[in-house]
């Protein structure tokens, strides 16, 4: 098999972020929330005490990036997991039961898809509390129609395949057919979608935090760090560099893994496109 550059690069990037995340539990150079006004706006440098510098409150940026990775990854992972589970369940329910259940579920999904970009997440945040829980709930709901539509159309496609018909004629129960035939047939696409959705979840989480609708200060979150740096970054541009790069690496990593898996699992062979 030809080397899959996207997948390799994606795995490397995600490993970098996961490394930072694991390290944040082991040891951080400073307390991420400790303010020290006399140390504010120290520039970055490898030979300095604060490798990535300090912010307007004198907090260590590297420690805040490390601490922030916990929130970003937690929110992304939990919400994509929740959203995909609910989405798969609803999509499968609609495709298998058909009739009015199918109509109602799929119309609701159409409705949810009509909310562009982060509008749905913002509307939900208005209702829920701001913070980790609110973000998780909002992003989970955002993910539901993505997965339910995918599963729905895959089941309808797979249904036409011979082996399902054969299984039906052998008298397997609906549940058996679902777990024995549909799930293996759908797994490659679901895994691919999961990885790309992690990328979008990180994008939404950081956007919400940036807008002040996500994780609240004084806790560290990458989007929030960028938002707090807005007042100062004209004079201290380095403030925006580290969180920006952290976000890009994370999203790029998950997207590349999604693309790479797509090439390997779905477009086997014809992947150079």
């Amino acid at each position, binding site marked *: 098999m030809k080397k899959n550059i996207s997948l390799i690069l994606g795995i490397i990037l995600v490993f970098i972020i996961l490394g930072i995340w694991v390290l944040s539990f082991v040891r951080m150079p400073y307390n991420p929330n400790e303010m020290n006004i006399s140390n504010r706006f120290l520039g970055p440098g490898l030979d300095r005490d604060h490798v990535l510098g300090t912010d307007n409150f004198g907090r260590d940026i590297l420690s805040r990036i490390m601490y922030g990775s916990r929130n970003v990854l937690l929110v992304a992972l939990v919400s994509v997991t929740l959203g995909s589970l609910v989405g798969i369940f609803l999509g499968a329910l609609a495709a298998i039961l058909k009739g009015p259940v199918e109509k109602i579920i799929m*119309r609701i999904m159409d*409705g949810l898809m009509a909310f562009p970009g982060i509008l749905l997440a*913002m509307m939900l945040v208005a209702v829920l509390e701001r913070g980790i829980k609110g973000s998780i709930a909002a992003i989970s709901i955002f993910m539901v129609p993505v997965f339910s539509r995918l599963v729905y159309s895959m089941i309808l496609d797979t249904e036409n395949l011979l082996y399902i018909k054969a299984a039906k004629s052998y008298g397997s129960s609906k549940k058996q057919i679902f777990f024995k035939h549909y799930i293996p047939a759908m797994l490659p696409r679901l895994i691919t979608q999961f990885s790309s959705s992690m990328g979008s979840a990180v994008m939404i989480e950081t956007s919400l935090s*940036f807008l002040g609708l996500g994780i609240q200060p004084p806790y560290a979150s990458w989007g929030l760090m960028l938002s707090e*740096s807005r007042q100062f970054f004209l004079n201290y541009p380095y403030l925006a560099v580290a969180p*920006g790069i952290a976000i*890009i690496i994370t999203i*790029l990593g998950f*997207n590349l893994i999604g693309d790479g898996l797509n090439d390997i699992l779905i477009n086997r062979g014809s992947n150079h496109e």
Partner: protein
Amino acid sequence: MLSYVLDRLKSSLVVLFVVSIITFFVLMIIPGNPAQLILGTDATPEAIAELSSAMGLDKPLYQRYLSWLLDLLKLDMGKSYVYGESVTSLIARSIPVTFSIAIFAMTMAVIIAFLFGMLSAIKKNSIIDYFSRSIMQLGTAIPSFWIGMVLIVYFGVKLKILPVSGFVPIERGFAPFIKSIFLPSLVLAIGEVGTLLRIVRSSMLDSLKQDYMDMARVKGLGWGKIYIKYALRGALTAPLTIIGMQLAKLAGGTTVVETIFALPGLGRLVLTAVEHRDIVLLQGLVMFITSTVVFVTLIVDILVMLFNPRIKSFHQGE
């Protein structure tokens, strides 16, 4: 043709109906009494009760939904408590801002995506192809708020050639107008160009493999004819659909960019409504934005159909 349009129109209306139910009932579970929110914490219980009944809050939910829906159809979306102004006029005032940057952004994205998408498909695995594929990945991975901040520093502060905040209406001159929307549009365009470029490239690759390309070559046509008249013509359907979806998305998904560049558009209104839990305003905005999305999508679907005569004939039942 007509039956197709009617069909699509019907399903669009169903979607909007579902959206109205979601919007109304989701925003109903907001904690706290809206009358209390409006009057503030030191209001007397009597005043709150009076306002509640004036707002119809004491009626059953389905009745409130129906009267809200009826008002909505009359374009009466109520009064924002933050601004103390009718939601309809607030929206009307913000439309030019958001639509200007959305359309300008899509224009930029379309030009870049088609240019690089076509070149990269024609010269597959060349330097330009790798460059385009990098744009594809980076475009979708770079957050708009970050690229926006970078552009502000570079163009606005270092080069001082473009304004970094505020909106100049087109009535005050075309050049200042374009200048004021250039950077925000560029940020949006960067966010959309990756997806579009990917679609253009893959449709183009697909089209280049088709038999009609052999025919165009064997006829000895020039490169322009071969690649634009034949290859591109066969590769337009999917990109057109995506452009429609992106345009629709931008019509309501510009909150972040409007915040960075301090533009008084729809996105800013959404943010204010969410921050202050101004339900009436948020309900109106959500309904307006989703309707825009649904109708832009509808129009693009119809355009794609007109453009692709095979779909047309399929619906004519030929």
